[in-house]
């Protein structure tokens, strides 16, 4: 039954809040252990919201232990643009005492706490919330019976939430059948029994008092798909004509290689699980040399191991896509947390002057499109392209418009048209064009690709003048790209007090911070840099229109006081207005942290804005 230990005052506060605040969106945090399947309910809710044309964003942490250990999933869904997964939860579902203790702080004032009364006995007398005890474990056991034990309590909670938010049961049950269908009738029956028990739980009074999601307007009529960043990236690669690649397992990159391994078979390609990172990048470069747009990827430590071969790809000027799903570093670091600390490694990581393209997607949808862009850039500029995504984007689920693959798909067939006597793979004045093996060369020698400095025909040479020319050739093609890049878009005020500059997965929280800041009367704008090396044109002019330029990034402010992108921008533009808002707590930026940073930076110091003491 609905909680008897709800403090009256909280109940009053909350209901009055509920009455005045009509909900555009809701943030639900589920906290339990990793084996409880809370990611599964989170994913169901996200996909349901996507199917209902509601915007959705999720956030999850998984422990790096194999099974067990605390795990959370947070889903924010509603109408309009959902830019971040939400600073505070409106709704907390706590499966265990530790879930309650660790996450009650994340519940907003006047929010709702649902706890498993079989495991948790909270003292909420000092907490402004509506606490509702539900016997989740025993309710599930009772409903399912037999040997399933408490398996299915996630689905019980899903039923409960479905009732509380008036979600469309038919769509949701269809999703459940799709997901569990392959396990057979028994599993579906047990799942639905748990779902129905949760759905039947008499919780109407909470719903009436609090949460009624505005129905989403039927959008453009364009169907939405709901997926995570790693999957979106993989689909982008397939759309871009990527058919060959190689990798080695490492969290959080592995899901990309797992999906490619199975998906590529349908497309007639091959993804190789190599013996190590060095072999993986070598296989992939061999595939690129063969005339394909090939891909390899990893996370931080693996990217370090690939660096020598990447330098070779820059030298031999071969197109290659390298995905780096950043996690907390250095070394093994925080394998299941997020950080943006591989920027310098991505840009400068190899020995020698080895320029390459580095780009970063800003949200899950962009993971799809940036993969296509990477393939085009790699091919057009005949050079490696590193995509810097991160753990937050990798696992976050968002809904977006289904891409138009008829328009976007790129044919991957290698060009093997014969070459004549004037064939030179490395013309000094033009961008390199390789003749892949299988190409007939008539009247000229067959080309050799090499890591040695070489002449226009690819022949090794130690000639100092030629080394200077070739170094310039490899650099100038990126300068050409820089001139052709689109000018970055400005959100918010296009001049004023503060410009927030970000890259990668911080896009949503920064945009939301700007919206909030402007609502509070600040003159504040936002530029998000997708092309990190080379940088896009006109940044200098944009920066000059603001009194202060704050670069928001999830890395350390370093020896000299600036984060990695801020350091590069200061070196590039020599603009003292550029300063840093950084943090290294392994969690995605909260909107409030960014706004705190903006406020604190009115002083002379750069700030670390995590909830932890300034270290």
């Amino acid at each position, binding site marked *: 039954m609905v909680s008897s230990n709800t403090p009256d005052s909280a109940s009053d506060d909350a209901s009055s809040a509920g009455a005045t605040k009509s909900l555009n969106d809701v943030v639900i945090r589920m906290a339990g252990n990793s084996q409880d399947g809370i990611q599964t309910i989170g994913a169901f809710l996200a996909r349901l919201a996507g199917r209902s044309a509601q915007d959705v964003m999720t956030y999850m942490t998984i422990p790096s232990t194999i099974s067990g250990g605390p795990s959370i999933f947070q889903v924010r869904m509603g109408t309009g643009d959902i830019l971040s997964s939400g600073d505070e939860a409106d709704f907390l579902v706590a499966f265990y005492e530790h879930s309650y203790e660790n996450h009650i702080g994340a519940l907003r004032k006047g929010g709702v706490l649902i706890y498993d009364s079989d495991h948790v006995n909270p003292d909420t007398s000092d907490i402004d919330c509506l606490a509702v005890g539900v016997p989740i474990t025993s309710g599930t056991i009772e409903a399912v019976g037999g040997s399933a034990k408490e398996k299915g309590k996630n689905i019980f909670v899903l039923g409960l939430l479905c009732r509380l938010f008036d979600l469309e049961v038919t769509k949701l049950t269809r999703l459940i059948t799709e997901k569990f269908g392959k396990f057979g009738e028994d599993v579906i029956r047990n799942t639905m029994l748990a779902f129905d028990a949760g759905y039947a739980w008499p919780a109407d009074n909470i719903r009436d008092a609090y949460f009624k999601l505005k129905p989403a307007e039927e959008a453009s009529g364009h169907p939405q798909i709901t997926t995570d960043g790693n999957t979106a990236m993989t689909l982008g690669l397939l759309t871009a004509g990527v058919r060959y690649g190689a990798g080695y397992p490492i969290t959080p990159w592995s899901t990309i290689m797992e999906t490619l391994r199975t998906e590529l078979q349908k497309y007639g390609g091959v993804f190789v699980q190599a013996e190590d990172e060095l072999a993986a990048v070598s*296989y992939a470069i061999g595939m690129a040399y*063969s005339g394909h747009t090939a891909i390899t990827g990893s996370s931080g430590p693996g990217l370090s191991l690939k660096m020598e071969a990447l330098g070779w790809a820059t030298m031999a000027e071969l197109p290659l896509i390298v995905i780096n799903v950043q996690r907390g570093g250095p070394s093994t670091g925080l394998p299941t947390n997020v950080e943006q600390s591989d920027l310098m490694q991505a840009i400068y990581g190899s020995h020698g002057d080895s320029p390459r393209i580095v780009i970063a997607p800003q949200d899950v949808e962009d993971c799809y499109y940036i993969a296509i862009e990477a393939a085009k850039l790699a091919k057009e500029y005949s050079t490696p392209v590193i995509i810097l995504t991160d753990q937050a984007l990798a696992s976050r689920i968002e809904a977006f418009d289904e891409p138009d693959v008829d328009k976007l798909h790129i044919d991957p067939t290698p060009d093997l048209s014969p070459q004549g006597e004037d064939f030179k793979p490395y013309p000094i004045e033009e961008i390199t064009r390789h003749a892949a093996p299988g190409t007939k060369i008539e009247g000229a020698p067959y080309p050799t690709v090499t890591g040695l400095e070489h002449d226009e025909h690819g022949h090794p040479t130690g000639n100092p003048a030629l080394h200077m020319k070739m170094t310039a050739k490899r650099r100038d093609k990126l300068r050409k790209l820089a001139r052709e890049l689109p000018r970055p878009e400005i959100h918010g005020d296009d001049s004023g007090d503060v410009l927030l500059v970000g890259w990668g997965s911080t896009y949503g929280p920064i945009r939301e911070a700007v919206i909030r800041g402007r609502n509070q009367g600040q003159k504040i704008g936002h530029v998000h840099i997708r092309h990190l090396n080379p940088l896009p044109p006109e940044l200098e002019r944009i920066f000059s229109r603001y009194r202060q330029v704050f670069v928001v990034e999830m890395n350390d402010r370093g020896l000299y006081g600036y984060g990695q992108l801020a350091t590069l921008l200061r070196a590039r533009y020599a603009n003292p207005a550029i300063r840093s808002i950084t943090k290294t707590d392994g969690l995605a930026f909260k909107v409030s942290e960014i706004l705190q940073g903006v406020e604190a930076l009115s002083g002379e110091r750069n700030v670390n804005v995590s909830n932890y003491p300034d270290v």
Partner: protein
Amino acid sequence: MTTATATPEEPKLTKKALTADHPTWCPGCGDFAVLASFYRALEQLNYPHENIVTMAGIGCSSRFPYFVNTHGGHFIHGRSVPFSAGISLSRPDLTVFVFGGDGDGFSIGGNHLDHVARKNVDLTYVIMDNQVYGLTKKQTSPTSPEGFKSKTDPWGAIDQPINPMRKLVNSGATFVARSHATQVKHMVEMIKRAAEHPGFAVVEILSECIEFFPGAFDSSVKRKGGEFITIDEEEHDKTDLTAAMTLASEPWPGRFGVYLEVIRPTKNAMEDALNAKAQAKAGTSAPAELLKSTFAKMR
């Protein structure tokens, strides 16, 4: 390998067409004879010229591709085998040869050799073993015999060397042979048989470094008082791993010829079979249709 030979109207592949830069090796280096044997093997195999790929890693012997006029290249130290496996797996129309030395194959690339071999990727790997690091001017190599005096072991090498044939037999390679750079006819035969073998084929060739380890392989050279002992293929069961290991364990200088020759499905063929199965299940291999059906499941 299984590439079709050139059509009759195509000119036959000649040594002239296959010759590129003059080798930069020291006069008297064993590698010249390996190169000559490779030309001759290619002339006889007569694959379409444009479909031959000659790859190598780093080291004296890895300069090889510059002296052969085919598609090819010179990859980083130790990783030319996975690089070449990437070529083989993504381009079934090509015939892939990899050349390298003992440092490239048994030291820095030792792990790659084992794994590409066990995957049985269809390619031919020729290891030119001179038992010394030559390009860097006389350091101990993984195959240098104990007591070998080098710049890194002036008092004589103390580490036990790798036994190349034992390593290769044990690697999962499906064709393993051994030859000697003074025996051109034998090398041509071994290279040809390796090239025609479906799967990972490796030939180890003892190739003397005249500069830093002269005389290393004299014990198998008749005019130096040694004896070139070949394997009797009527006697030796080439499909028997234990017999191959026994041969490989014979005392130095051991025998030359084919140690192991077994037929096991190549990774190339197994990946093709998986693809055919996946495509049959999906009902289409049209990329746009496949993508649309994936998106439909994400709605």
